[in-house]
C-alpha cells in the first residue's frame, strides 16, 4: 500500500531504520526536515529526488557522516540491535563504516585515490576492519570480491592504478570496496550516472546479484526514475528535504499520489513515447515536416534558397586527433524545418560532429553544406549570413554565459557581429528573443549567477535565436538539468520549431528522448552513422547491431 506517511510497520527484520532525521547547516538552516525510511535485508530502497532535494545528505547520514558545514540536529539512525548510530562516538561510527555499513560513491574518478593501486585500496577496507585471521585470508577475499563484481582478480590487475581503468571498471572497484567486508547495509549514491547505457546495465546487474545473494539491505540514491524501476523494490521520493511519497515500486511509479511525484513521472521521457513530456504536441513521426512562416518582426527576411531537397548536408566528415580517429566518415541530411536527433554515447564523436557543423571546429575534412552551398570550416571564414543560419547551443548552462555580463549583453553578442543594428533595434531584438524563450523582460539586466540552470539554458537558446537561424544545433542541452527542467526545455524547443519553422539537430546520449523531440534519428557509433531514418523506424526496427544492443539495455519505467 503506497502511503504519504513514512511506513513504520516492520514486516521483515529491518537492517537500518532512519527516524525523523533532521540535518541543518552549521548556521542553522534546516535542510532535512524529518526524514524517515527503513532498509530491509535483500531489498533495495530507491531514494529519488532532483538536485537540492537532500538525498545525498540523507544517504551519508546512514553512515553517521555529515559533510563540512552540516550537523545532525534531530532524529535517529538505528541498526538491527537498536543502537542509534548517531549517538555513537567517532570511533564507534568509524568501526561500522566500510564494515557493516558501506558506501558506493558517485564519481569513482574522484573517490579512488589516484596514487594508490586498486588492490591496495580494496585491501585497506579488509585490514582496517580486521577481516579474517591472516593476510592470506584477506588476499583470498580480495580475489573473491573482484570476481563478484566481474573484474579480473589476478595479481597484475590488482596492481593497476585507477587511471588505467575505464569508468565502468572504476565504478566496479568502488562497489568491490563497499562489498568486501560483507556489509549488512550498502548505500549507493548515483553509482551509474555518467556510465554509458550498456555499462550501466552491467553494473546494475552486478549490484542486484550481490544484494540478493547475500541479503544486503540497499539504499539506491538517484535522480533517474527509469533506473529505479529496474533495480529497486521500494521508492521514496524526496523534495526539498522531505519525503513526499514512499512505497512499493509499482505503486509509486504507476499510481502516484503526490503532486510532485506525478509531475516527476510526467517529465520522464519514455522510449515508447506513450506519454508526452510537457504540453506542446509531440514531434513524432506522425507530424508532417513543419512549414510555418515565421512571424513578422524586425528581422531581415529569410534568404531565398535554391530548391534543394535538404537544408543541411554533411558528407564524409572526418577528423582525427593524432592517432585517435574521432569522426570516421560521417554523412547526414537535414530537411527544412526537420528535427533530427543525433544519438551517441560518450566517445562516439557527437559533440565533435555538432561543432564541425556549427563551425566551432575547423579541423575536419569532408563537407558541410547549407542549402546546397558548401560552407568553410570554421565560422571566421564563413560569411555573416551563413553564420546566422546555423546556431549552436552548448551543454553546460554554467559555462555558456559570461558571468560578468548581463543576460542582455550576452544575448546581444551575435547582433554586434551581424552589422548595422542600432542600439534600440538590438534591444528590441533581445527582448523578442527572451520572450520567445519565455523569460520575462526583467531578465535582460540580470547576471547568470542570479538565474537557475533552466533559466540560463533558456537565455543561451535566446542568444542562438536572436539571429533567426534556419538550423539550431543543440548539444546535450538538457543533460545537465533536472528531469522536470528538461521537460520544460524540450517543450520550449518544440514550441520554437512550430513557431519559427527552423530545423534542429538535437545531440544527446539519452535515447529515451527520441520520440519526444525528433522526427528522424541518427545513431552515431565510433565516428560513423550506423543507423538513420524516421524515429519510429529506427526504434522499432534497428538495422545495426549496436543500435539493437543499445535498445535492449535502456532502462524503462
Amino acid at each position, binding site marked *: 500500500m503506497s502511503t504519504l506517511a513514512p511506513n513504520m510497520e516492520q514486516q521483515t527484520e529491518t537492517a537500518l531504520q532512519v527516524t525523523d532525521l533532521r540535518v541543518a547547516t552549521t548556521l542553522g538552516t534546516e535542510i532535512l526536515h524529518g526524514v524517515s525510511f527503513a532498509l530491509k535485508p535483500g531489498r533495495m530502497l530507491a531514494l529519488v529526488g*532532483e*538536485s*537540492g*532535494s537532500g538525498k545525498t545528505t540523507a544517504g551519508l547520514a546512514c553512515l553517521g557522516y555529515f559533510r563540512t558545514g552540516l550537523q545532525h540536529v534531530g532524529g535517529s539512525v538505528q541498526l538491527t540491535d537498536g543502537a542509534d548510530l548517531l549517538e555513537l562516538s567517532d570511533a564507534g561510527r568509524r568501526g561500522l563504516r566500510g564494515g557493516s555499513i558501506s558506501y558506493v560513491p558517485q564519481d569513482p574518478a574522484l573517490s579512488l585515490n589516484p596514487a594508490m593501486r586498486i588492490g591496495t585500496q580494496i585491501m585497506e577496507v579488509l585490514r582496517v576492519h580486521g577481516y579474517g585471521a591472516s593476510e592470506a585470508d584477506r588476499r583470498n577475499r580480495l580475489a573473491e570480491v573482484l570476481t563478484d563484481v566481474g573484474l579480473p582478480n589476478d595479481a597484475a590487475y590488482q596492481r593497476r592504478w585507477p587511471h588505467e581503468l575505464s569508468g565502468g571498471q572504476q565504478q566496479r572497484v568502488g562497489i568491490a570496496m563497499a562489498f568486501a567486508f560483507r556489509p549488512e547495509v550498502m548505500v549507493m549514491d548515483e553509482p551509474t550516472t555518467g556510465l554509458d547505457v550498456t555499462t550501466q546495465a552491467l553494473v546494475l546487474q552486478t549490484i542486484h546479484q550481490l544484494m540478493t545473494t547475500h541479503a544486503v539491505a540497499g539504499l539506491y540514491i538517484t535522480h533517474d526514475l527509469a533506473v529505479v524501476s529496474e533495480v529497486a523494490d521500494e521508492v521514496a521520493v524526496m*523534495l*526539498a528535504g522531505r519525503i513526499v511519497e514512499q512505497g512499493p515500486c509499482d505503486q509509486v511509479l504507476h499510481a502516484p499520489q503526490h503532486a510532485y511525484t506525478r*509531475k516527476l513521472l510526467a517529465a520522464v521521457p519514455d522510449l515508447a513515447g506513450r506519454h508526452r513530456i510537457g504540453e506542446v504536441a509531440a514531434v513524432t513521426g506522425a507530424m508532417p515536416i513543419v512549414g510555418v512562416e515565421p512571424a513578422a518582426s524586425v528581422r531581415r527576411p529569410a534568404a531565398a534558397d535554391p530548391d534543394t531537397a535538404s537544408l543541411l548536408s554533411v558528407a564524409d566528415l572526418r577528423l582525427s586527433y593524432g592517432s585517435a580517429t574521432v569522426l570516421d566518415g560521417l554523412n547526414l541530411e537535414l530537411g527544412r524545418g526537420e528535427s533530427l536527433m543525433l544519438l551517441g554515447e560518450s566517445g562516439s564523436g557527437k559533440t565533435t560532429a555538432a561543432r564541425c557543423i*556549427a*563551425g*566551432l571546429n575547423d579541423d575536419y575534412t569532408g563537407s558541410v553544406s547549407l542549402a546546397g552551398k558548401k560552407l568553410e570550416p570554421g*565560422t*571566421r571564414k564563413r560569411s*555573416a549570413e551563413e*553564420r546566422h543560419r546555423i546556431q*549552436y547551443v*552548448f*551543454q*553546460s548552462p*554554467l*559555462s*555558456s*554565459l*559570461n*558571468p*560578468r*555580463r548581463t543576460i542582455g549583453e*550576452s544575448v546581444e*553578442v*551575435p547582433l*554586434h*557581429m551581424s552589422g548595422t543594428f542600432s542600439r534600440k533595434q538590438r534591444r528590441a531584438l533581445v527582448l523578442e528573443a527572451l*520572450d520567445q524563450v*519565455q*523569460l*520575462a523582460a526583467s531578465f535582460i539586466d540580470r*547576471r547568470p*549567477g*542570479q*538565474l*537557475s*540552470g*533552466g*533559466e540560463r539554458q*533558456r537565455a543561451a537558446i535566446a*542568444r542562438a535565436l536572436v539571429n533567426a537561424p534556419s538550423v539550431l544545433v543543440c548539444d546535450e542541452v538538457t543533460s545537465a538539468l*533536472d528531469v*522536470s*527542467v528538461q521537460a*520544460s526545455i524540450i517543450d520550449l524547443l518544440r*514550441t520554437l520549431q512550430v513557431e519559427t519553422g527552423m530545423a534542429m539537430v538535437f545531440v544527446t546520449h539519452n535515447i529515451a528522448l527520441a520520440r519526444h523531440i525528433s522526427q528522424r534519428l541518427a545513431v552515431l557509433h565510433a565516428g560513423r552513422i550506423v543507423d538513420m531514418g524516421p524515429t519510429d523506424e529506427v526504434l522499432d526496427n534497428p538495422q545495426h547491431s549496436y543500435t539493437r544492443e543499445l535498445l535492449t539495455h535502456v532502462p524503462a519505467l
Partner: protein
Amino acid sequence: MSTIDTHTETPVTIDETPPGLLRRILRQRQAKVGLALTGVIVVLAVFGPLLLPWLTGYTSTEFAGRPFQPDGLFGTDNLGRDVLSRFLDGGLSLLVFAALATGLGMLVGTAAGMLAAYQGGWLDSVIMRGNDVLLALPQLVFALLAITVLGPQGWVVVLVIGITHAPRVARVTRSAASAVITEDFVRASEMYAVPRWKILAKDVLPNITGPLMVELGLRMTYSIAAIASLSFLGLGMQPPAADWGLMINENRTAMTLQPWGVFLPVLAIAILTVGSNLITDAVARASATVEESK
C-alpha cells in the same frame, strides 16, 4: 504563451545580487586594518616632504648638529642631520618607484599572459620559455646585474624590477586565463566571430580580475621591499638623498647609541609592507568566495 512558472523547478539556491568584489573585500577585518596601516604610511610619505622645513626646522640634508646625538625629537644621524626630517622626506621616492615598477610589471605580464593563453601554439611556447629564462635569476640578482652595467639610477631600478615582475604576473595570468578560455562563453564569442582583442577584453579579462588583483597586491608588496633593499645595499637611491632604505644602512652602525635613525624607517617600511599584504590577503579571500558561488 505562458510565462515560466519558476515554482515548477526544484528550489535552487539563487544568489541575490552578490555584493561587488570591492564591497566584499572591504567587509573583512584584514582589509580595514591593512588599509589603515598603509594609509597612514602613504600619507606620511606623500605629505612628509611638504612639511619640511617648517615642522622640524631642518631640511633633510641640512646639518643639525653632531652625529648620533640625541638632540631634538629623534636625534641626529650619521652625518649630523636631523633624523625626523630625513625620515619625513624619505618615503616618497620609494612609493613612486614601487608603484611605477609594479605598474610596468602588471601591464607587460598581463598582456603576455593573456596572449600566451589565448593564442597558444608557438607564441605560448616562446612566452613561457622567455619566462623561464627570466625566472632563472632571482629578482635581486637580476637587478644587481643591471645596476652593475647601467648604474644605480632611478629608471634602471624601476625598469629592472618591473621586468622581473612580468614573468611572475604572466604565469598567474596565463593559468587564470586558460581556465576561462575553455569556458563555453568564450567559444560562443569565437563562434560569432567576435574580434580576438574584444574577446580578451570583454570575456577573459573581467573574469580574471580576482587573481590579478591578488598579484597586484603581491607585486606591490614586493616592489616596496625590493626597492628599499636596493637602497639599503647602497645601490638604489644615492646619498645625500633621503631614503628610508638608505637611512637604515647609514645609521645601523650606531644602533646601540642612537637607534631612531634605524627604527623610524624600519617601522615605516614594516607597517607599509604588512598593511599592503593584509589588503592582498583580503582580496584573495574575497575573490575565492566569488569562485565558490559561481
